[in-house]
């Protein structure tokens, strides 16, 4: 069963999908850059409570942000309004959704008891320093996968992600889980891993979401 709530934030209307009903702790899913809530498919098995998935601005059934401003902190502000509506939620994010989950876990510990970071598009951003490379300013629609996605969201592929900035949020979070799969991770992720402020989930865990309830 899927029910979609639309809520307005500033001048935007955003889509929040309820993928699964239940009584128990809530789970909020944040998709990868260029993705949408539809990609989560069936809700994570055996999650005891309601499962929600947000379409970020410029993605899925959410509106594009007029003027084209996209940044992890702005996506976090949109997701924060969903948290305001839903109350405390475990948050799981993929790619840029993982980075947004990290920001929310650090800034809103009272609303995010635990966050799970999964790989996906937009995980790296532009690396540890700003990417000023020529041409990296106005992405053409052809730069990304087809679909309803606003081309300007791809500017998030070059926003700087200094490791110490990410570590500040990881250190302020109540509980953080890193989904490892053997692939390389960006420096900000490695900084969190090395500082031992997060629990690592080894490759091959069949239901990483269950660890959010531990």
């Amino acid at each position, binding site marked *: 069963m899927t029910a979609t709530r639309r809520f307005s934030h500033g001048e935007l209307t955003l889509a929040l999908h309820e993928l699964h009903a239940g009584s128990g702790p809530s789970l909020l899913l944040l998709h990868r850059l260029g993705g949408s809530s539809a990609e989560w498919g069936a809700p994570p098995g055996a999650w005891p409570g309601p499962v929600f998935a947000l379409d970020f601005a410029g993605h899925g059934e959410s509106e594009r942000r007029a*003027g084209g401003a996209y940044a992890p902190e702005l996506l976090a502000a949109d997701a924060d*309004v969903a948290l305001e509506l839903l109350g405390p939620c475990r948050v799981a994010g993929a790619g840029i959704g993982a980075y947004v989950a990290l920001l929310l876990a650090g800034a809103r510990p009272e609303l995010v008891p635990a966050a799970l970071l999964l790989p996906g598009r937009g995980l790296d951003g532009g690396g540890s320093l700003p990417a000023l490379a020529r041409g990296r300013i106005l992405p053409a629609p052809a730069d990304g996968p087809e679909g309803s996605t606003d081309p300007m969201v791809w500017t998030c592929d070059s926003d700087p992600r*200094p490791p110490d900035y990410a570590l500040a949020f990881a250190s302020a979070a109540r509980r953080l889980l890193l989904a490892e799969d053997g692939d390389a991770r960006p420096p900000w992720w490695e900084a969190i891993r090395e500082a031992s402020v997060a629990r690592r989930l080894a490759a091959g865990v069949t239901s990483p979401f269950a660890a959010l309830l531990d």
Partner: protein
Amino acid sequence: MTEPEYAGAVAPERTRTFTSLGVPLRLSEWGAPDAAPVVLCHGMFDHGRGFDLLAPLLAERFRVIAIDARGHGDSGWVDAYTWGTDVADVVNVLRSLGRPAHLIGHSKGGGVATDAATRVPESVRRLVNIDGFGPPPEGFVIPGVQPDPRPIPVRLAEFLDGRRASADRATRCYPTLDDLIARRLASNPRLPRPWLRYFVFHGARQTERGWTWKVDLRAGRGFGPWRPEWIGPGYAQLETPMLAVTGSERDTWGPLPESVIGPRLAHVRRLERARITGAGHFVHMEQPEATAAVLLDYLDR
């Protein structure tokens, strides 16, 4: 209220609307339409009419185009502002001209112009940055305001709180234009009051409830991990020749001490510098003739 006059200030000969990423931007123009183009970018919380002193002097030889940045002056407002979209707007204006242009920016507009030139060097002939070399390492210290010592996640929470409330776009109104002038004078005590009357008039509007700034105050409320030590390495990627202009006098927002600005500018490959005597941060407003003379000399070479 009748429009104030100020000696040397010339209103734009033409204005038009240019749409960038769906946002209507006000462009103000002086000079022959078929002359070589010069694009002007103003600073934070300023607007294109702040070039009413400099632009007519440059217009003797150029088509001068001043951009009102999004959220500023007579340009449209948006739901959120980022440095990247400001740079994209300048790039879009440059690309629309059909030929390379000289690019001049003041303060934040100097930083945005520098980034734009870095990204589209084929569209920029020469770059002039007027005291837009970023904040000092410790950030700009506003008189009477202490730096924020709180951890970054706490500050992001405050930003999120502000975004939750952002549906409320109510702007503060002041009883008279003089109230706005007094506020600006407190921040920029070097600027002559008659000029501020002219400059503030064009950056404000009269409503039923009083006078209010045209600027969207949210334009100053971004959040991200940006830091001053990235400025110099960014300059290293600039191919376009840059003239770095500073004033001789200490002022609220610059010039930076040489110990800060020197190492940053050392990254610029094709650098010239000019120092305008008798000017603080608002070089082109305080000394328009001297500034125009230096700029015309540089741009014509």
